[in-house]
């Protein structure tokens, strides 16, 4: 809250300095001969405002962003013996609770007594003090820096001062800073995934993770219990992901391609104007909605259909198959895959549509003039010409199918099985990430860290697919005209 008020105040202060600077420049322009001012008065104002506002704002923002981290670091620097005796997770909870107490938030349900209780109160008092120190310190620093900025910039205003160039210099820095954010995002993703995965791979060997066939991340409470270490072989997850991706692509690729062909080659302008936005709605539906639909509508319909078929087969020559089919459950790979495929239809169709539209009309005209039918033209001329683009579109769809979470979470089940049977429940990489990281608070057990190992695998696989898709487009794109 304080940060917001401080930023608002800074904004107003900066606005006021703009007016001052501008007025001074105008006054100078009026006294000197006309046109003697190098820059427009507005630039002089902006120059002063930037000096007065920006550095101070950066200080306040930095305090808001890194203040909590600083606070925790100081709190942890010297802890009483009773606290040091706690497990690492216990310490995390302890310090979180101390901070929660300090700003009146809800603490965890852990009960502290004796030494710990007094330590908690001491730490809470310290946290409160530190928090205020950081906030007010940043505020004071902001005021000083803001005034200093004003003191530096204001006297510089003179007719010969190149305020415009200076302001544009600031703007250039701002531009580059914004572009750097995109890089930093990638660095952040890679660094956080690699760092946490590295901690995971210290307890589980990478080869066991990549080629192990047993996935059971449940860690027992005591070390002497059965399966005390959990099993982290990710092959069943890869198999499940692959199976669902395969089903999704079997739905999305033909339907998406055929609709793109129809839309770009056959449809009248009116049909196109109606159908295309409708397909785009399909693309805009949130995935959680598809998940809900898959779980509550498509799942039961499929189960009914298979159960009915199974009942018909029971007693006949395919008795065992019938028995199996009659016991199929709602949650199966087929449901998640089919619904995901439908989600991908507009993605495939709009990308392929764009690509086929880019094939020049002269190629089609040539083919039609030779007496080929439209479908022959499409199959023998348009599709080959558009093939690299279509391949890239399909690869992008594959990478989306691999990374899709909600539909599978809601419709495919949680059991880790290595199977290619679409009627079985399977689990995928994304589903396991969700189940591993929801509700669990500790971040040092291999169980939670394994989610980052999975995330890294997912990132690497989709990254490779994307790069291949980009390369295909760049390398094989045919330049007509």
């Amino acid at each position, binding site marked *: 809250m304080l940060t917001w008020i401080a930023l608002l105040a800074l904004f107003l202060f900066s606005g006021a300095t703009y007016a001052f600077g501008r007025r001074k420049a105008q006054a100078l322009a009026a006294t000197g001969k006309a046109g003697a001012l190098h820059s427009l008065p507005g630039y002089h104002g902006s120059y002063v405002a930037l000096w007065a506002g920006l550095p101070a704002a950066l200080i306040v923002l930095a305090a808001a962003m*890194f203040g909590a981290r600083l606070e925790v670091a100081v709190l942890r620097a010297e802890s009483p013996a009773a606290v040091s005796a706690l497990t690492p997770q216990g310490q995390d909870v302890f310090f979180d609770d101390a901070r929660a107490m300090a700003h009146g938030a809800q603490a965890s349900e852990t009960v502290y007594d004796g030494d710990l209780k007094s330590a908690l109160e001491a730490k809470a008092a310290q946290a409160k003090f530190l928090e205020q120190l950081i906030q007010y310190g940043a505020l004071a620093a902001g005021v000083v820096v803001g005034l200093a900025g004003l003191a530096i910039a204001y006297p510089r205003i003179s007719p010969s001062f190149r305020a415009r160039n200076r302001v544009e210099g600031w703007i250039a820095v701002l531009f580059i800073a914004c*572009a750097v954010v995109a890089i930093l995002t990638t660095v952040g993703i890679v660094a956080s995934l690699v760092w946490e995965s590295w901690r995971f791979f210290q307890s589980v060997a990478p080869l066991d993770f990549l080629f192990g066939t047993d996935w059971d991340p449940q860690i027992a409470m005591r070390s002497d219990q059965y399966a005390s270490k959990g099993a982290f072989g990710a092959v069943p997850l890869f198999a499940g992901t692959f199976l669902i991706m395969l089903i999704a692509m079997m739905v999305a690729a033909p339907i998406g391609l055929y609709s793109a062909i129809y839309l770009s080659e056959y449809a009248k302008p009116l049909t196109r104007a109606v159908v295309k936005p409708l397909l785009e709605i399909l693309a805009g539906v949130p995935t959680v909605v598809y998940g809900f639909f898959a779980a509550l509508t498509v799942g039961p319909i499929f189960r009914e259909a298979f159960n009915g078929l199974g009942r018909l087969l029971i007693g006949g020559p395919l008795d065992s198959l019938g028995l199996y089919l009659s016991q199929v459950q709602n949650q199966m790979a087929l449901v998640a895959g089919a619904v995901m495929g439908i989600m991908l239809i507009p993605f495939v169709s709009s990308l392929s549509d764009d690509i086929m539209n880019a094939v020049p009309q002269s190629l089609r005209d040539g083919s039609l003039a030779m007496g080929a039918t439209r479908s022959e033209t499409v199959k023998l001329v348009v599709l080959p010409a558009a093939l690299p683009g279509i391949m890239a579109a399909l690869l992008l769809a594959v990478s989306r199918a691999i990374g899709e979470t909600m539909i599978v979470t809601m419709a495919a089940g949680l059991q880790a099985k290595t199977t290619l049977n679409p009627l079985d429940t399977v689990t995928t990489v*994304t589903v396991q990430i969700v189940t591993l990281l929801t509700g669990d608070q500790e971040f040092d057990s291999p169980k939670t860290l394994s989610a980052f190992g999975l995330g890294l695998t997912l990132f690497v696989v989709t990254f490779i697919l994307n790069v291949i898709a980009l390369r295909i487009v760049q390398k094989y794109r045919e330049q007509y005209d």
Partner: protein
Amino acid sequence: MTDAALPTDKAAFRLGLETRLKKRYAQERRFRLYGQLAIVFALGFLALLVGRIGLQGYSTFIDYEVTQTIYVDPAKVDAADIGGANFDLLVADQMLAKLGEKDDEFGEASGKMMDIISNDFGFQLLKMIKADPSLIGKRVTLTGPVKADAALYYKGELKRSTPQDERKLDDRQLAWLDKMQASGAVTKGFNLGFLTKSDSTEPEQAGVLGAVVGSAMMLLVTAVLAVPIGVLAATYLEEFAPKTRWTDLIEVNINNLAAVPSIVYGLLGLAVFINWLHVPRSSPLVGGLVLALMALPTVIIATRSALKAVPPSIREAALGVGASRTQTVFHHVLPLAMPGVMTGAILSLAHALGETAPLLMIGMISFVPGVPEGFTGAATVLPVQVFIWENASERAFHERTAAAILVLLAFMIVMNLAAILLRRRFERRW
């Protein structure tokens, strides 16, 4: 001339030609049909999806309310300890009395009555008496919803024909419900509560307001961060940056970021914002930060293509009369590209609004009963609310899930419509 007049080999040739032509035309028709079928299938699915969810969800907006005059018995409500009184029991007893039923010594009937009327009555009564203790000993008239199971009965989804053991309400309760309806105490109306209340453990009292406010706050954070940063970054890359290896790398990088699975952004948010920077979990702030990073590449890509569409002659004209490059960009190029930029921004924000998976990673799955208190307080958002309700075991939550989806879809449609209108309104040919 007839075929018979032709030499036989020519006739055979012609016959072959014709059959082949027929085949080719049939093939052509088939091909065309496949295309039509594909589109019909996709649109049919869309209709099925929207129709089915509409059918499942619309009944949430119908509400059954009971109006009842309650005598606040001084013997049961102690003025010194108002919170200690059992208002639910008080209300249930008087409802029973009105139906002409007498409670047995175990309180079985009142327990059953409490299963069909919402404990919202109790809350209302508590609130009223706390505000005005002089109500004790007087009669007050209250209106409140029936419990979700009872509403399902009125809506015909819980059927009398189901064997008693398999349904939530027994015959006696159903008889009461019938009696209450016959006496005119039950009114059917629009369920405004669904839009003005927040999440609750009781389906009949659960609403979407908290989630809508949470979504709006989170989207605000996303927009404030992603749009300016994305637009400036794109402008820099398109208008200022020299074409070097580095800028090529940045470009490839941005294209890749746009295709990174959303759950990976959730992992990033968890590791960097929560574990490293200690931003409060499940707050609109951290959700907005994660979604902003996710929306950023899309905003950049859209802005770049909008900037590319502005013809160079505009830039040259501005530069020619002595404007600096910055002035050219801010006074001429960006304003002309603005419609395209806005369209891209709105579409990527609409996408961010519907995103669920990364928010589950940063703890947004917790139960939040009220409207979020601030940007750092706990909050829930619409898509996550849908996910939480979908997992709820009570059947009444399923219709609420569908209704929440309808609200979410309404949001999406409004945003997409805004983008389309913007594109139409400012469409320009150079």
